[in-house]
């Protein structure tokens, strides 16, 4: 057992940093401004150990019959890096978030809870056992419930938190129900063992289907796909914008990593010569995911048409993106997973960037309403142009990285001869163009009701902003690095 410890170094470091933050906050209560930097340094150290994991491919904590609780492989390492990266960015956002000013004396909790989330997500992306899956999802959820209602000063903030708790509680209850059924059917909780057991003909198929869909409910709640998305707009709108951004990127990434590993490990019999997966003939996951992803993106995009609040608009847009990302799973091939990894790399940057600008503008004008964005393109040109770039990238137009992300998704679909699905996704993109461009129309073409004084962001924030805009343009033009990174992250343990 102990000789597996080197495989969980990142998790150990995250735990140590978590403890450090709490201790530091207890001793130096009057120095909360040092906390973010402490966190960033901790994450830097973590990332060093995560990068190391790209060269591992094995079980950790294997039991007597050589099946372990969690696995360490390049696929997990990629998602861990993504989580670390978005955590760093979100922590840097948090430094200048004005919403947090009202809770300045509790900032220690804020950062330690973020680390709680990171720990949960790390376990999610590498869990290979239903028990650990449940525990890690709960760890992530419990931390995010508190963070969603962290500021407590507005009604909608507390409301968001409460809704999140209730909804999350129900979802994880459903998921636990599903897990218990699977255990009853197979007598094990390890995904690899389940995989070999359910290939036996005597398994009751209806029961297994029921369990599978119940477990998917729990994961679907995390990645907010329809019809398990209802919490998303309310929570995203109510939570502090930094947490909203974090939920929409990191927690979604962890959820997808978990889903992919769960499906691939548990339900795949073999991989054929063209790289397509042969599913065990229990549940038609393919049609299931097609249905879910089409409903999700259609619903997200159409509902976003009516939103007048930027956070809510981006919430629906993130639901739609979850739908697009699921298309990569629909293909049921390594090419699809490649597309998902590319998409997430790009999506993390552009979505965080969009939320960052929403935060900077809210810091200045105190509003996230679309009507208050009128004329902003002229009073704050730098933020305006950057937001335009992020939104164009979210739509998926060249020469931004968002185009490349969608391109690879559609290529995967066309290669799998699912032209119909690709066309529906394409039409959805057209719909999404409308509400993204509506923001730009408000900023550049509509006359503001009152005079807005010129403003810009502070120098450190501008540097951070450029660090987010530059890759969107750069990878839009030269995207081989992203593709190569994705190709090297494809290896999932066991395949």
């Amino acid at each position, binding site marked *: 057992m102990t000789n597996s410890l080197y495989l969980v170094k990142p998790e150990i470091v995250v735990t140590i940093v978590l403890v450090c933050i709490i201790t530091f906050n207890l001793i130096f209560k009057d120095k909360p401004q040092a906390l973010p930097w402490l966190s960033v340094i901790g994450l830097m150290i973590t990332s060093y150990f995560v990068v190391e994991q790209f060269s591992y491919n094995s079980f950790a904590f294997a039991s007597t019959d050589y099946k372990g609780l969690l696995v360490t492989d390049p696929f997990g390492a990629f998602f861990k890096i993504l989580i670390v990266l978005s955590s760093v960015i979100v922590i840097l956002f948090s430094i200048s978030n004005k919403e947090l000013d009202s809770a300045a004396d509790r900032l220690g909790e804020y950062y330690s809870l973020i680390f709680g989330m990171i720990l949960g997500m790390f376990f999610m992306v590498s869990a290979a056992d239903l028990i650990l899956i449940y525990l890690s999802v709960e760890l992530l959820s419990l931390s995010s419930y508190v963070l969603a209602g962290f500021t407590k000063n507005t009604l909608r903030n507390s409301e968001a938190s*409460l*809704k999140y708790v*209730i*909804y999350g509680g*129900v*979802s994880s209850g*459903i998921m636990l129900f599903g897990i218990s059924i699977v255990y009853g059917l197979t007598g094990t909780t390890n995904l690899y063992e389940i995989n070999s057991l359910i290939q036996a003909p005597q398994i009751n*198929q*209806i029961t297994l*289907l*029921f369990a599978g*869909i*119940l477990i998917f*409910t729990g994961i679907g709640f995390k990645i907010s796909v329809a*019809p*398990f998305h*209802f*919490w998303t*707009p*309310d929570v995203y709108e109510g939570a502090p914008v930094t947490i909203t951004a974090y939920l929409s990127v990191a927690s979604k990434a962890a959820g997808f990593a978990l889903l992919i590993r769960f499906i691939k490990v548990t339900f795949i019999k073999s991989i054929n010569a063209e790289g397509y997966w042969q599913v065990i*003939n*229990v*549940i*038609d996951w393919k*049609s*299931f995911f097609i*249905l879910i992803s089409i409903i999700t993106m*259609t*619903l997200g995009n*159409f*509902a*976003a*048409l*009516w939103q007048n609040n930027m956070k809510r608009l981006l919430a629906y847009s993130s639901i739609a993106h979850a739908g697009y990302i699921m298309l990569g799973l629909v293909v049921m091939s390594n090419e699809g997973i490649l597309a998902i990894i590319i998409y997430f790399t790009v999506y993390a940057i552009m979505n965080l960037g969009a939320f960052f600008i929403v935060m900077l503008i809210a810091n200045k004008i105190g509003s996230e309403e679309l009507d208050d964005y009128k004329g902003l393109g002229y009073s704050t040109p730098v933020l305006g142009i950057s937001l335009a770039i992020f939104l164009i990238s979210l739509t998926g137009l060249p020469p931004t990285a968002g185009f490349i992300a969608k391109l690879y998704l559609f*290529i995967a679909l066309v290669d799998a001869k699912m032209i119909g699905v690709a066309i529906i996704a394409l039409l959805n993109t057209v*719909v999404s163009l409308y509400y993204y461009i509506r923001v730009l129309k408000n900023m550049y073409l509509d006359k503001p009701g009152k005079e807005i004084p010129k403003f810009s962001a502070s120098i450190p924030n501008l540097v951070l902003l450029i660090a987010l805009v530059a890759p969107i343009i750069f990878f839009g033009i*030269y*995207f*081989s690095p992203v*593709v190569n990174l994705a190709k090297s992250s494809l290896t999932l343990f066991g395949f």
Partner: protein
Amino acid sequence: MINMNESILINLALVILFLPVIGFIVALFLAKKVKKIFLFENFVIILAFICSVALLYLKLTYFQSKDIVSEFQWIDFGNVPLFGKLSVELGILLDNISVIMLFAVALISMLVHLFSIEYMSGDKRYNRYFAYLGIFTFSMNGIVLTHNFLMMYIFWELVGLSSYLLIGFWYEKKSASDAAKKAFIVNRIGDIGMFSGILMLFTTYHTFTSDKIFYQISQGALPFNSEFWLTVTGLLLFCGAIGKSAQFPLHVWLPDAMEGPTPVSALIHAATMVAAGVFFITRIFTMLTGDALFVIAVIGALSAFIPATIALTQNDIKKVLAYSTISQLGYMILALGVGAYTFAFFHLITHAFFKACLFLGSGSVIHNMHHEQDITKMGGLRKKMPVTYTTFLISSLAISGVPLTSGFLSKDGILAGTYAFGYATGHWLFAAAGFFVAMLTAFYMFRLIILTFHGQPKDQHKFEHAHESKFVMAMPLVVLAVLSIFIFYTPNPFNPEQGWFLSKWIKAPQISVPENARYSFMKPDAAQKTEPDVNKSETAKQEIVYSETYTEALHHAHIPAMLLSLLMAASGILLSFLFYQWKKFDPDKLAERVKPLYKLSYNKWYFDEIYDAVFVAGTVGLSKSLAWFDNTIIDGIVNFTADFTRIFSKLSGKFDNIVVDGLVNFMAYLSGFIGLIFRKFQTGKVQTYVVLVIFSLVILLFLFKTF
């Protein structure tokens, strides 16, 4: 010996490429905030020049006969259905031609930058001017360094854009903004051809990388499997060069482009941009068939001849230089067309230096004469501006082909090439045109010098205020004039082939087109044929093989061609002295006697008028006749049917209102409605959400339970 490796050279080249664009960005964005930001751009360009000297030295010392390629994969989609492998590489190629060209561009760009500090002083968009020079230098470096057609095209268009910006720099003047537009549009016509050529290559060979394309051609792979289409592709690519190098019949933009600031004319209309076309042809020389080369030679000869006759009668100092530029570029194209590859490139370099010197010299004159450009109002400036006069004289001697200058060496080589071509193929007209134009060149250049610098001043007021230029303007003139002396290219002022430039650095590449599509003299004779080298790698470059008869012809051509060209230069110079200095003949009387010819030349062969009448008026006429057709015929039919339709229209109006509009509006509202429905689920009540989750769970279960 220093341990020298190729990556140092590649990195140097990248630094040279990207330094100017950094200068451009900094200078453009800080143009209004920092007054002295132009100094940064100048600093950057000097740095680029130093790097290019280092690169030139290293390449020619350590890797003299090796091509260095550095490339990376930009796009890789693997196998694409219906097309095959789709991947695009970007990269740079360092061979002797590109490093020499890079040096010339960097040097002239630097000198022009320095010259402009004084020339442009007081301009209200001073900093922006330098920023534009920066982006131009960047694009030109890109053309020189690229190893593939895609990047070539990108930088080609960037050069077009930056020259547009520079020609129209004083856009408040209508003539300047018109000239910029004309240059841009005329260039575009050529570029369409070039673009189609590139697409032909890409669809045939599935790559943009030139080496790979040439290798495949040498292996016998041709577009549509025919030599005819290879010729067509070559000529389409040549269209780009016709536009950019201002060759007949697209030469009309260059004289108008003289509306830009004079240093700009020196940089882009003498040494770099217009040279890009010739440079491009040297790059694709190996894939041009004999037929394509012959067309190129014809275009080159026409472009050498027509503008030379126009330059005889022009009175604007810059216009004369502009026409002489077209004429000299025609020489280079002609040389390529008759297969004298090395001399074409040699002339490109020597011409770049002395023509830049001439333009900067004219800039110096114009600047000190308070923007007077008419040579009939000048005169006697020799004493007032000795430095300008001396350097101008040296460059004029070079362009006229007087011994001891660089121009003599390169032009003599080209003339010998046409002579040998005539000997080998029987087409003597090219040689005749070449020698005749040599005389015209000497004549109009010395006419220019005599009217400007000799004799008595015609405008006493301006003459009194004229003075020699300051150091930053005089220094570039001196540097360029010095570079027009033979010693930099060969130790023997009468035989360039003994010099390092031609004997070591510049070698014509082996032709890769099939043997029966080449010029007869570009095939090896039976005696020279050797066993094909089995180990020949894809990148190894071989030297061209000429037939023995041609080599002999070239050898024989050397002495007669030299004597003849000397005679031509001397007679041209003598004639102009007779006419303008000693006034033995009266040029006006001669003009009166050959009035039709004089008018033809003075009015630039009426090219602008013809184009106006044919293309501009043609377009206008076509649209007018279409409008007439619309108004009478179509409207007539419409009116006739109108009454008939009226009855139906009422019916269809109803149909429209109810069904069609209904459908359109319905689609719009449907989208919104779907959104609204989705929104309705979002009640805000968490208990509803939970119910919905359970509900959808049940539905999902029923949907998939059949499995």
